[in-house]
């Protein structure tokens, strides 16, 4: 799918020429800017197109070409287009997902951007996620919190309050199960949802640094601390906390359970709020709490995956691409594209305003004040791709057959020896 934006940009330009004339006179770019984007879902796509309209209006002589690639297809196509016929900008993910491209020299080092005042002052929180080998390889444009989204009305009905400790969590869950419901809905057909559970139980049991070491292959899967994580997780599994047959459902297919009230909560990213609202859960029925603390000695750390832009090394118009990056991270643009009526996520610029939304507010507060341990990306972004694939398969098996744990851990340990 190729969407040529030249026309739109020209149209937008004529209408706003007077307004932006002064600015365009001094900074205006010319030439081309080719962007490959994976923002293919309706809302992200509108955001991407909106950004190009506004950027185009600022630079009337710039030809912007946008190609929107399906988000899943992007994951394989990026291999091809970064090594030949590269665009000037491409979407991708932060953290270890960048490694293959950085190692192969296919991503441009943009450390100079990160040395600029705007980045130093307002983007410090995501700098780590974009850093490999002490250099920065791209810029973030949005991130979102993970946590427990629960049915407020069911909690009220059963007289439950938001738990903060593992004991409270289990007590709550016991009551929910006794009422004939599952505590959590989950769909593990595509595996990564199980990765979310492992991340949280592990972050709370062993902490952020342990998560990073495990992801980097520095800790054996058969380590007693890893076993402790699984033992904690198993307490919930043995209670019947999770919906049955979750291995046959995608995360979307698992939502009806919480919507129908067969499950009381779901551990997922903020992207699930939109479909849950659409399915009829208004804000008085749906609420959010931070995943409870398990080991009190461990600082709270969260999963907050960051989506990014990168410049391929083979790009032809790198200066134009960098200017677009500055535009993307600017406080004003960040406020606009992460608003509830756009992406509905969190802005990465500290000067941006968070849209007044129940879940965005709670997520923002949680990540800015109550995540002292650090911010992880996600199981399948922090672990190398192959380890993540094999690992999440083991996690799914564990959720269905907890007794297979020994076998699973040995298998993961063999994979670890092989992959790193």
């Amino acid at each position, binding site marked *: 799918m190729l969407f040529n934006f030249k026309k739109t940009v020209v149209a937008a330009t004529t209408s706003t020429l007077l307004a932006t004339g002064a600015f365009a006179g001094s900074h205006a770019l010319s030439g081309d800017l080719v962007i490959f984007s994976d923002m293919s879902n309706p809302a992200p796509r509108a955001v991407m197109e909106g950004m190009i309209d506004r950027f185009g209006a600022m630079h009337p002589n710039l030809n912007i070409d946008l190609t929107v690639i399906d988000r899943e297809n992007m994951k394989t196509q990026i291999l091809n287009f970064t090594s030949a016929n590269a665009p000037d900008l491409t979407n991708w993910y932060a953290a270890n997902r960048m490694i293959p491209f950085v*190692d192969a020299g296919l991503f441009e080092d943009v450390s100079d951007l990160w040395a600029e005042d705007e980045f130093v002052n307002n983007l410090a929180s995501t700098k780590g996620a974009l850093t490999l080998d002490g250099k920065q390889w791209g810029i973030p444009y949005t991130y979102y919190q993970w946590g427990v989204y629960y049915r407020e009305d069911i909690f009220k009905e059963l007289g439950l309050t938001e738990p903060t400790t593992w004991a409270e969590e289990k007590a709550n869950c016991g009551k929910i199960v006794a009422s004939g419901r599952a505590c959590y809905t989950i769909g593990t*057909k595509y595996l990564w949802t199980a990765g979310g559970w492992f991340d949280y139980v592990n972050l709370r049991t062993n902490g952020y640094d342990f998560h990073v070491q495990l992801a980097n292959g520095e800790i054996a899967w058969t380590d007693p601390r890893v076993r402790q994580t699984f033992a904690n997780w198993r307490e919930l599994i043995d209670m019947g906390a999770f919906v049955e047959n979750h291995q*046959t459902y995608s995360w979307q297919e698992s939502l009806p359970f919480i919507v129908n009230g067969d499950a009381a909560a779901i551990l997922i990213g903020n992207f699930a709020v939109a479909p849950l609202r659409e399915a009829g859960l208004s804000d008085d029925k749906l609420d959010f709490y931070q995943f409870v603390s398990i080991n009190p000695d461990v600082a709270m750390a969260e999963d907050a995956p960051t989506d990014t832009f990168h410049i391929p090394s083979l790009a032809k118009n790198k200066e134009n691409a960098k200017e677009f990056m500055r535009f993307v991270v600017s406080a004003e643009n960040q406020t606009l594209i992460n608003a509830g009526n756009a992406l509905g996520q969190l802005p990465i610029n500290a000067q941006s305003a968070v849209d007044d939304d129940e879940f965005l507010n709670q997520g923002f507060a949680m990540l800015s004040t109550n995540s002292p341990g650090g911010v992880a990306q996600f199981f399948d972004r922090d672990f190398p791709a*192959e380890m993540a694939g094999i690992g999440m398969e083991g996690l799914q098996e564990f959720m*269905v057959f907890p007794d297979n744990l020994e076998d699973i851990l040995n298998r993961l340990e063999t994979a670890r020896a092989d992959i790193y």
Partner: protein
Amino acid sequence: MSATTQHIKAKPLWNKQKLMPWLFLMPGILFFAIYVIFPIFQSFNISFYKWSGLGEPKYIGLKNYVKLFGDRAFEISLWNNLKWLVLYLLAIPTGLAIALFLNQTVTGIRLYKSLFFFPFVISQVVVGLVFTWFYDPTFGLLNTILTSLGFAPLNVLGDPTLVTYGIILAGLWPQTAYCMILYLTGLNTVDPDQVEAARLDGAKGLRMLWYIILPQLRPATFIAFVVTVIGALRSFDLVSIMTNGGPFGSSRVLSFYMFEKALSEYGFRMGYGAAIAVVLFAIMMVFIVYFLRAMYKQESEPR
């Protein structure tokens, strides 16, 4: 006419007859070479390397193959492929049975035939989705029926021991229709005189089928066998749609595993993927060689 003129005339004719077929075949051969033959050798080559698809491939000799033998996921895929191969062949007798049943002249038979043929026309993706909903452990038709009959509900696609059979059953639906249509056309060519003669000799029922009809259907059986075996070995779409290889990899087949290792989100191991592809190719080659030989023999037989 003198001998010289004949000679002059004959030579271009000989050339034409030798050359023209090749000229006509040229585009096909060219594309076949570029898109099929060349990639086969390329895969062989890549399977000796460790390569992420980016950067420089590293030569590691036979290590990818050595690793395959210790890889449990590969073993599961291989066994599943075997299950596919054996059970998929059920499409041939079922297809024959339906074809025999439909091979009669009643009002509306064309409609019945099209209805039976329908699953082959719709895309495999749709077949996969239909069966996924049928098997759905919570809302699916299968469990509604099972529980109303007093049986325990089944989660076919979530049970590592059942899942492959569940997918094969879904695959049999369109494949049976395909075999049926092959046999229906075959039945049209059955010689009525022979059937008449056999009837006079007192042949009926199964004996008629076995000794008179089936031998005449041999070409149809052969083609049905070929397409079913190839279909079983390249089963991919249904696995990908219905289970994504799961639960925990228990429904993988070789083609799916290859895709996962080399091209999927968690793959990027081109060399290893290529090694799986080579193994699959070797298995297919056994059948392909057999088919080609059989076809060659058939064609060189005097009619």
